[in-house]
């Protein structure tokens, strides 16, 4: 596959790995006193485990798995609200597969489907639009999830629905943004992070300047990275070189996809359809100011919260996290998944308690699936 295979070349990896090892040693980091590098994006977490990168890099590097998995940070109250909408007889709820197993207080979408709700997995908001065209007698709702990468797709779908006058289409909007939680993490005095690997696909939409505050105000290096293993290793090396040289800058390893100023058409669609909520709740992190988006009044006809009188439209309500769930501490890098008392006992992929065990991008599920928990030694 062009633009993929060449970034998975194990021979090229050897050189990057040994350069990473040299640089780590030059910095003086060791297994006992490691550098803490946060990959913000859940896609990076997944790639690290899929390719076994955590075991390939020098043991003076410790990856901290950041909050960049939209499914993992979705609060229970929003899952409950989605289920509530889905259970209405006139509704066809459409969702990405990722959200199907996320537990709500009553049930997950998967369980709601089994109980009779009409819930369908789609690959794209475009597929939800098509369902709305084909089912004029039904209300087709799209469960809008995701960071800035995904936000333009639902914005464009809403614009298209408006152009076509597709009155039976709406979006239950849970879109969130990356920079705000990072700022919240950096403001936390307990946080010890030495550098960041920045989210590649979010950045192709918003550009790289959105992270200027990380380098300028907080003095931490950040390198925006692609998703193939060589991309990640090269970005890690670039972070380490900044640390070694005492620099803190925003750098771009993924220039083949990420333009400095982002994608103007995507940004225009987001600005046209969405506005910031005063605050939005993140599972494990609590309410974060200006971190969520809602549909502008001009497009209220396509806002499922307005249409069904649910969610933030009906006044915010929070649901406490399940007893003993340490997702919040894992997500902020305070503890490793294996240090959670529920890991592997009260919380497994079969019966997830917290969201980090649900999504394949969740740190806990990745630890479980790829054996970070059970196999210390590589095969």
């Amino acid at each position, binding site marked *: *596959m*062009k*633009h*993929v295979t*060449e*970034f998975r070349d194990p*021979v*090229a990896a*050897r*050189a*990057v790995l*040994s*350069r990473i090892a040299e640089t780590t040693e030059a910095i003086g980091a060791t297994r006992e006193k490691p550098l803490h590098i946060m990959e913000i*994006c*859940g*896609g990076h977490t997944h790639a690290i485990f899929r390719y076994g990168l955590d075991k390939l890099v020098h043991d003076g590097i410790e990856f901290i798995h950041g909050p*960049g*998995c*939209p499914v993992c940070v979705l609060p229970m109250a929003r899952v409950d609200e989605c289920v509530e909408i889905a259970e209405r007889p006139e509704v066809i709820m459409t969702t*990405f597969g990722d959200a199907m197993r996320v537990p709500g207080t009553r049930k997950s979408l998967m369980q709601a489907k089994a109980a009779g709700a009409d819930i369908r997995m789609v*690959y*794209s*908001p*475009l*597929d939800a639009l098509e369902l709305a065209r084909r089912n004029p007698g039904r209300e087709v709702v799209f469960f809008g999830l*995701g*960071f800035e*990468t*995904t936000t*333009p*797709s639902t914005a*464009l779908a809403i614009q*298209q629905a408006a152009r076509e006058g597709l009155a039976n289409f709406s979006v239950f909007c849970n879109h969130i943004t990356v920079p705000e939680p990072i700022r919240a993490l950096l403001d936390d005095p307990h946080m010890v992070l030495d550098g960041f690997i920045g*989210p*590649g*696909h*979010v950045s*192709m*939409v918003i550009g790289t300047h959105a992270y200027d505050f990380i380098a300028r105000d907080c003095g931490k290096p950040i390198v925006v990275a692609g*998703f193939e293993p*060589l*991309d990640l290793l*090269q970005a890690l090396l670039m972070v380490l070189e900044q640390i070694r040289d005492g620099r803190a800058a925003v750098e771009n*390893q993924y*220039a*083949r*996809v*990420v*333009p400095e100023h982002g*994608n103007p*058409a*995507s940004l225009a*669609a987001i600005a046209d359809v969405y506005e910031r909520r005063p605050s939005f709740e993140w599972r494990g992190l609590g309410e974060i100011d200006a971190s969520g988006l809602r549909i502008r009044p001009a497009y209220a006809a396509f806002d499922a919260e307005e249409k069904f009188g649910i969610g933030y439209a009906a006044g915010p309500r929070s649901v406490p996290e399940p007893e003993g769930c340490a997702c919040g501490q894992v997500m902020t890098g305070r503890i490793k998944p294996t240090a959670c008392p529920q890991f592997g006992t009260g919380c497994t992929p079969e019966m997830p308690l917290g969201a980090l065990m649900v999504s394949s*991008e969740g740190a806990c599920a990745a630890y479980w699936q790829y054996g970070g928990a059970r196999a210390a030694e590589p095969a």
Partner: protein
Amino acid sequence: MCLGIPGQIVAITDAARMMALADISGVRREVNVACVIEDDIAALIGAWVLIHVGFAMARIDEDEAAKTLRALHDLGEAQDELDAMAEGRRALEAQP
């Protein structure tokens, strides 16, 4: 977050709705190209784009891709030289 995969635009299917057919390793899917049109939609044919949830979200910059690969390649060459030097040193030290 945000699974994205490179694909090549092979046909325009609906210019008014800005829809095109993308080929991803032999799998074809209709995608929206609103975010990557520069002037003429037909000019997209043959272009490599990054696809996420049925939308082409960025054009892949072939020059930048080549640059990144060259940087990786150079690292490899530098490493080979270092390895060769280390090998030479060991050989010298091993001599009686």
